[in-house]
């Protein structure tokens, strides 16, 4: 059974009601965070000519924005720990808006780096972390579904922003477009307003808390009735309660001793090297094979469309009672499937082969993205999630930024795309297998600890019952006597 760390939040997450409005808010925030840097590339050619700079210099704007977004993770986590999700998202939205408005008056490329890259990037970081965190506070039972729905924001917003950006560019030029984009991004503030902090009340109905756990219902009940004692005795919950007090600290460094967190981190760092590059190179690879520009762009649309639908579906599957307890295996499968997909890509010949690849890749990418943060929540629990995600993003910053340029270098050296796909496939397959093995080991250890804590707690409740019986006898004796 997965660790009951999440149940020791001290309250029952609503799992519905206002939670769905929060999911919608997170949908918008996450959507803008991931899609915004990608959609800005439409303006690059014009800006490059305007400022007379080289292509790599203009591509830095996107990189700086992405780097700031990932580097701002820990700061964002600290602020969320201290102030909660809502104020941070509101500030984030205003920051991106300010960055874009200032950029529209820009007079040099450095100006753009600072405004769009740094300010915009940090603003987006302040959107991403809180959005992910607040889902964990509102959902427990339906959390994978909520996560899947929220992560769908990324492809949907990208799908909408791409043609919108083109239209804005044609009508207003790049300066006007930046101004209007600044106002569109302010809708993140609306998303932030929706993120009402959850009401933390302790409900006395234990059985409703864990409908998705398999295993003895009686055991579950006894765990829940003895929550207070279990708190003190269960090793996992000891660290969780320590985690609760750490919530008041700025950021939780003790996560580095958490077994699950370390597994996640190690696998992800390798995985991210090969994560984004195939997306970036899908269209160029198609053109390299002789396919015309419009069909190549259509491939990306197919990919985005499949991605869009598979994310909520994955969330739904992850929520079923067969998958939920062993959701880490589902994640490992998704990572390995990505790897296999890339390794088989060079076999695709002609346009039809690439369409098939795009569909399967869309499936793989969507599955992985939907589960990416859900499994982290599952491992460390909702309390420590905000710190965890902050640490994870800043460490992932490196591979995310280095991945596409390295792949590009591979393509340039060999003059052929297939080696890049092999490399990306390996970069994803190895962590996938790593995850399978490590989580098998992790689940075994967790089951052991669970059994130990239940045994200890049964013993304590036996003693309390004995004590009570003795007291009753005494009172009976006293009454008799």
């Amino acid at each position: 059974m997965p660790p009951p760390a999440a149940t020791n939040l001290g309250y029952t997450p609503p799992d519905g009601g206002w939670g769905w409005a929060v999911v919608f808010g997170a949908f918008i925030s996450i959507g803008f965070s991931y899609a915004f840097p990608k959609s800005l590339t439409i303006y690059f050619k014009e800006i490059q000519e305007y400022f007379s700079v080289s292509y790599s210099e203009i591509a830095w704007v996107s990189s700086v924005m992405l780097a700031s977004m990932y580097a701002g993770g820990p700061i964002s986590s600290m602020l969320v720990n201290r102030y909660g999700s809502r104020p941070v998202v509101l500030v984030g939205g205003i920051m991106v808006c300010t960055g874009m408005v200032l950029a529209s008056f820009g007079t040099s490329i450095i100006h753009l780096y600072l405004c769009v890259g740094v300010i915009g990037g940090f603003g987006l970081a302040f959107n991403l972390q809180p959005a992910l965190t607040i889902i964990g506070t509102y959902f427990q039972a339906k959390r994978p579904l909520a996560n899947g729905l929220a992560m769908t924001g990324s492809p949907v917003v990208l799908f909408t922003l791409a043609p919108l950006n083109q239209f804005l560019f044609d009508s207003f030029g790049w300066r006007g477009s930046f101004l209007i984009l600044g106002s569109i991004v302010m809708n993140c503030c609306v998303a932030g307003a929706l993120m009402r902090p959850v009401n933390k009340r302790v409900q006395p109905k234990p059985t409703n808390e864990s409908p998705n756990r398999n295993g003895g219902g009686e055991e579950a009940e006894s765990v829940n009735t003895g929550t207070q004692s279990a708190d003190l005795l269960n090793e996992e919950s000891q660290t969780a309660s320590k985690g609760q007090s750490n919530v008041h600290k700025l950021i939780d460094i003790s996560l580095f001793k958490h077994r699950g967190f370390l597994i996640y981190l190690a696998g992800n760092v390798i995985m991210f090297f090969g994560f984004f590059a195939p997306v970036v190179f899908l269209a160029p690879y198609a053109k390299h094979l002789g396919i015309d520009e419009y069909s190549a762009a259509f491939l990306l649309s197919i990919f985005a469309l499949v991605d869009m639908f598979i994310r909520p579906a994955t969330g739904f599957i992850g929520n079923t009672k067969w998958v939920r307890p062993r959701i880490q295996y589902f994640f490992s499968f998704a990572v390995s499937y990505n790897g296999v997909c890339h390794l088989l890509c060079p076999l695709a010949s002609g346009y039809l082969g690439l369409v098939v690849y795009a569909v399967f890749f869309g499936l793989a990418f969507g599955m992985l993205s939907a589960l990416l943060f859900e499994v982290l929540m599952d491992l460390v629990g909702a309390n420590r999630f905000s710190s965890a995600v902050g640490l994870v993003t800043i460490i992932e910053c490196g591979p995310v930024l280095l991945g596409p340029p390295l792949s590009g270098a591979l393509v340039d050296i060999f003059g052929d795309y297939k080696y890049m796909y092999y490399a990306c496939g390996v970069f994803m397959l190895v962590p996938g297998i790593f995850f399978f093995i490590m989580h098998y080991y992790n689940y075994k250890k967790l089951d052991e600890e669970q059994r130990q804590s239940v045994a200890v707690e049964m013993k304590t409740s036996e003693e309390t019952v004995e004590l009570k019986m003795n007291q009753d006898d005494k009172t009976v004796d006293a009454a008799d006597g």
Partner: protein
Amino acid sequence: MKLLWAVSALLLSCWRTDASTAGFTKSPLSQMKLIDDSAELHCEVIGNPIPEVQWWFVEGEEPNETFTQLFDGARNDRVQINATYIVHATSIIHLTSLTLDDSGTYECRASNDPDRNELKKTPKIKWIRSQANIIVIETPNIVTEPHEVSNQTSAVLSCNLTDSSLLIKGSYWTLNGNILEDSVSADDSPFTVHRLDKITHSNSGTYECVFKTEPQVKQTIEVKTLPHVVAYKHSEHGNENDKGVMVCVGHGHPLPTDWGWFKEEDGNRKQILNGTGDKYEIKSTPNKTTLTINELSIQDDIGDYTCLGTNELGPGSDKIHLRVRSRLAALWPFLGIVAEVIILVTIIFIYEKRRKPDEVNDGHHLDSCLDCI
């Protein structure tokens, strides 16, 4: 004593067998060339010690032959000799701007005999020789029909190789140096034809009919058209007080020599290069012209602009419409969306404040309310 002589003789002969006489590894090849062409003869000789290579020109018939040695720079610098003496001897003689008098036999002589330059001894004995003939012929006349094509919609190009005894192995046509694949033929006819059913800017240029003879002979026919002038974009945008750029490209043969820009205003008015007060800048190359307008103003600069490219046959032009966006054009949507955001946020907060008192009255205590605003 005799033994000593025998031994020393043996040793001497052993030492002498190290030396080898010169021998050709590459001999010069005979060639037939046209007047004003250039020719090259290669000669490679091995031997120990490294042989010396000389070039000689042989005129007349035996036995009244005259030999003239050729040096680097001979014949008014039309002769260049390039020789290397590493491991073996290599010498290449270049003859440029051939005339009919250059015809004759060229001889490559080599020797590694230490006595080779002794005047008292006959050279023929000590030098090895290899000969090649260079025959320079007059360029055969190729009659072209027509000589030049100007401003026609279609044409039939033909070449007739007259008065030549050269062996024709085939022919083909080229356009601007690129071989036209469908014109290649192995026909030994001296008459070749290329049809142009529709002459446009894309198939105008310099055509050459080439006969596969030894040496190759060819003739040029120029196909000229009016310049085809196209604008990069027919509708250009600029921002107020910013700069606007308009570009036109020229295609065809010959490329425009003269470019001009006009603004449509009840008739044409011409902009001069860098004139009219720093506002207009024109940069032109034969195939592209760029008009840059600084400090765009909405009243003055909106309208149609014409670019005109002229070559020796006539002009070609295209029109561009310039639109100037007001600085404030983007401001209204911006303010609109910001207003919408503020309204939505206010509605959400008001909705929440009205519900919150209801929840507090339920009587549940709020645990460690960390993120209550």
